[in-house]
């Protein structure tokens, strides 16, 4: 089997990857082919949200997505999130609130939240945002600081 090349825009940069097996998960492509280790593998079964990235601006579990299924898409990982005003605002809110303990879940939380803000806009309520972050787990249970970061977000475009 000779898979066709995989074309992606990764954090704004065009990439063409040869030899990506058809069965490869996007998570593994990101971590092991692109070397972007900020995207974390947690459960590998869609329960923890640690591997969340943006695919064409939409939050997606990279562990449950085949890389070739998103051929041609634009990816945003935690390494590129601050290139965009929404991402910068969210990472700054997390930093100010100290919204991390071990940090393993943080990239997934940040990308999931950036995705929600892109979907819902800045007027989304704190309750609504927290409810829709329920697919992301923090095993340190540092949720209070994360909730404070969400509550401290601006309510209009910064």
């Amino acid at each position, binding site marked *: 089997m000779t898979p066709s090349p995989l074309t992606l825009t990764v954090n704004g940069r065009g990439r063409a990857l040869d030899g990506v097996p058809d069965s490869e998960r996007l998570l593994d492509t990101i971590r092991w082919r692109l070397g972007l280790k900020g995207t974390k593998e947690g459960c590998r079964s869609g329960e923890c949200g640690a591997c969340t990235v943006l695919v064409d601006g939409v939050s997606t579990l990279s562990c449950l997505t085949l890389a070739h299924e998103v051929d041609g898409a634009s990816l945003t990982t935690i390494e590129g999130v601050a290139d965009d005003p929404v991402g910068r605002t969210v990472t700054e809110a997390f930093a100010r609130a100290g919204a991390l303990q071990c940090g393993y879940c943080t990239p997934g939380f940040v990308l999931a939240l950036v995705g929600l803000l892109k979907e819902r806009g800045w007027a989304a309520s704190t309750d609504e945002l927290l409810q829709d972050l329920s*697919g992301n787990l923090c095993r340190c249970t540092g949720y209070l600081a994360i909730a404070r970061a969400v509550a401290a977000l601006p309510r209009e475009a910064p």
Partner: protein
Amino acid sequence: MPASFTLVTPPSVEAAVAELATGAPGDVLVLAGGTDLLFDLDSPRVAPKRVLSLRRLPWRTLDWNGPVLTVGSTLPLRALEEDREVADRHPGLLQAVRAVGGVPLRHRATLGGNLGRAAPASDLLPVLLALDAEVDLVGPNGARSLPVDRFLVGSRRTAIGPAELIRSVRFPEPRPSAYLWQRVRPEHDISQIAVAVARSPSDGRWRLAVGGIPPRAARLPEAEARLSSQAPGDAELRAAAELAAQKLPIAADRRASEEYRRHLVATLLERAVRTVSASANGGR
């Protein structure tokens, strides 16, 4: 190690059906959103030669034709959840969709995938039963439709033919409806039991369905027959709920005991029927 397979991405329905019809049965698995399938593909027991992706088929659709809602099989659940009209006219469907995983998962998971995979713990199948949804299939001999109750055969088993695909799911009419579930950890667990309840405005009859227990989501006809009025009184409702709890083939497993599940079925059914009665009175 995950299996090695060839990913096939047909550009048309005809090409997809033709691809499915080639090779030995079991050689090929169908990929919609993949959120359930990919989990299985990590297991050495699941080793397809080909995985057929539906992503290029024109089935990411949501259409209203009068009262009839048709949902294309590859529409992400998140799009269904974000549709105002679905929320207003099928409240139980919205509640069930929001019970599936988190938002990033619902951006890929699909109604067609959920039906095709037929997990006993599916959060969507009970409400499809309560809403009398129909499954539209397409295959080498053309199109056909089956009520969800006939489409579901057992745990992970459906009546789909070897070269058939789920094209869409049709909901015949808006109904006051509710979906309630119980879990140990609300956001990260499989439901120990779930109930879907709907009342048809056209025939005035209740539909009760249960999920979260093997082998498959099921209607509760004996209990349905006990509910006659639009707003059942306490005694009528209690009798129907207890009958449902007694009749079910419930077993204990690591997620809940049999006794607790029987208690939950009755309690959740009562609560869901009251919710639907109240919403119908509220003039929704």
